[in-house]
């Protein structure tokens, strides 16, 4: 790096050129070939887009969560930005949030979400790890199975929901058919009729879709464990479970952290499966915070309360990431 900087003579002419010699084009070329100038030009397009479609909407969203949004009323104050007029609507302070705090529907949705996330994180981690352990063992056909790993992950959640609706259908479901043939059930089960069963079915389907992602991360972690650790454990007479507990799991701690954080956040944000499979029902039994926020904003077009709900969700994700980091990663780094 230092060598490049020393050899980088383009900076000096740039300063000399600033005194007047050389045209605009020449100065641009000099700037573009200087180290910092080149880097700036390379990140500029991407950063512009990220600013326009992430940071600006984010700030506007924060405003919306404190506003009473009436989509038809554009007479109020507005914000002019680069020739675009954005309505600011009526500022109502914390009213949207206060309304949430007093809404039993919100609290029900919150507890339901906590159950959903806990069940999802545990199942996705356990099944993801189990699949990684199987796929880390050598057997004939392993490359094929590793390739198949990405199939559930590569599908749109709409298609995932669609295919599981078919698998679980009480009219023509493959799962019902298999269980019926095995003599486990007498009649076909309606998985979505009962609220609790519908919620758990959603967990199962989401685990099917997301566990391969955990497996990919765990496999990457497993491959970095030195083999002599296992050899040493075997010399000490450790069996499968003791090796798993004393060698594998401690070595996987950074990956475990990632999987837990990412699946917790993904669990909180899951929305599309509910849209396709239950629409929040029966009753409100599968209405999670994310679905409530989405429904409030886009089915009832209450953008203020809707964004407020979605912001509480965002806050939960951020807080949980920090907590996990304190608990697991800090401990890992201390060792």
């Amino acid at each position: 790096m230092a060598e490049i900087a020393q050899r980088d003579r383009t900076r000096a002419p740039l300063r000399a050129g600033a005194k007047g010699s050389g045209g605009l084009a020449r100065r641009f070329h000099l700037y573009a070939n200087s180290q910092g100038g080149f880097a700036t030009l390379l990140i500029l397009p991407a950063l512009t887009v990220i600013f326009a479609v992430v940071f600006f909407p984010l700030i506007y969203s924060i405003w919306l969560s404190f506003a009473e949004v009436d989509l038809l009323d554009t007479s109020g104050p507005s914000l002019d930005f680069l020739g675009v007029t954005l309505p600011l609507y009526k500022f109502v302070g914390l009213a949207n949030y206060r309304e949430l705090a007093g809404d039993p529907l919100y609290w029900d949705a919150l507890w339901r979400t906590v159950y959903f996330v806990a069940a999802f994180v545990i199942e996705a981690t356990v099944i993801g790890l189990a699949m990684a352990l199987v796929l880390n063992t050598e057997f004939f056909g392993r490359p094929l199975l590793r390739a198949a790993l990405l199939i559930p992950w590569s599908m749109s959640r709409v298609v995932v929901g669609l295919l599981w609706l078919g698998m679980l259908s009480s009219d023509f479901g493959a799962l019902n058919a298999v269980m019926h043939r095995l003599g486990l059930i007498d009649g076909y089960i309606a998985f979505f009729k009962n609220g609790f069963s519908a919620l758990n079915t959603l967990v199962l389907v989401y685990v099917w879709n997301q566990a391969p992602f955990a497996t990919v991360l765990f496999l990457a972690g497993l491959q970095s464990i030195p083999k002599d650790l296992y050899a040493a454990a075997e010399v000490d007479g450790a069996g499968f479970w003791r090796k798993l507990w004393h060698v594998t799991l401690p070595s996987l701690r950074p990956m475990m952290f990632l999987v837990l954080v990412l699946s917790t956040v993904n669990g909180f944000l899951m929305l599309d499966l509910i849209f396709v499979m239950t629409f929040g029902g029966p009753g409100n039994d599968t209405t999670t915070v994310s679905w409530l926020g989405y429904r409030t904003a886009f089915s009832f077009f209450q953008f203020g309360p809707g964004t407020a709900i979605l912001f509480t969700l965002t806050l939960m994700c951020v807080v949980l990431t920090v907590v996990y980091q304190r608990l697991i990663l800090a401990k890992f780094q201390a060792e």
Partner: protein
Amino acid sequence: MAAVVANYRRPLAPRIASGLGIYALAALVAIWLMGPFLWLFITSISYQRDLMAMPTPLLPVNPTLENYQKILGLTEFDHADQARLVIASLSNSFIVAFAVTAINIVFGSAAGYAYARHRSRAMSLSLYLVLFTRMLPVVVLIPALFLMLRQVGLQNSLTGLTIAYCSFTFPFTIWIMKSYFETIPRELEESGLVDGCTRFQVFVKLIVPISGPGFVAAGAFTFVLAWNEFLVAQVLNSKRGMTTLPPAIAGMLGQANIDYAIIAASGFISALPAALLALIFQRYMVQGLTAGSVKS
């Protein structure tokens, strides 16, 4: 001890379960991963009336391509108007996914290269901002994006959708490409600069040609993300025929009158491109997945 290490081959298989056991487990994993996908295909080549038989046949009784002909408009049927949306949304999906991938490859990799090679306070601050956007749930931005695009007149347009998708694909691409470029030795650039190339020429002529695997990882990853996205398309492009495949399929599911076999056929068509990409570029996409998720 040395001999033990040398002979060590199977680190995790339980000794008792090593032979047949591992194949039983592998079969279980295979059924779990592939079963639902195969069932989708089986229903898509079945007649609804055959599926309704009790007990449900697990293999297609009268395999047929009629469901595919119906959604592709080759055969007329009762609800042809709803199924016909599949062709329009399929082409919309392709246009948006390709546009997003191209934009990400060009500008995302440029930014990734700059972050891999140049360190300064402003650069690390902006990189931190990019990573922060990766943490932000897209759903919280949708209300604001909806109002903004409506105001600019880009609602129900493929351009608006493409721009919106870049918000969640750019951080991934930048991060994946940054990790890839960091594996290329710096000496290559130094020799290029000594030979009199400009920095831009070094990037385009020396770095880009050897970065194929990085582009494949980022490109395949971005394509799958854009291809599968549902919520943003559902909200921003709600007009009939202006949306992508996932919202179109969700719309068909909402209507009780098309039979399930036809919807399954459109689901299979939607799953195919991404699944093929995942199978062909499996190794690169796994690289992308791990690089994309390992932050900080």
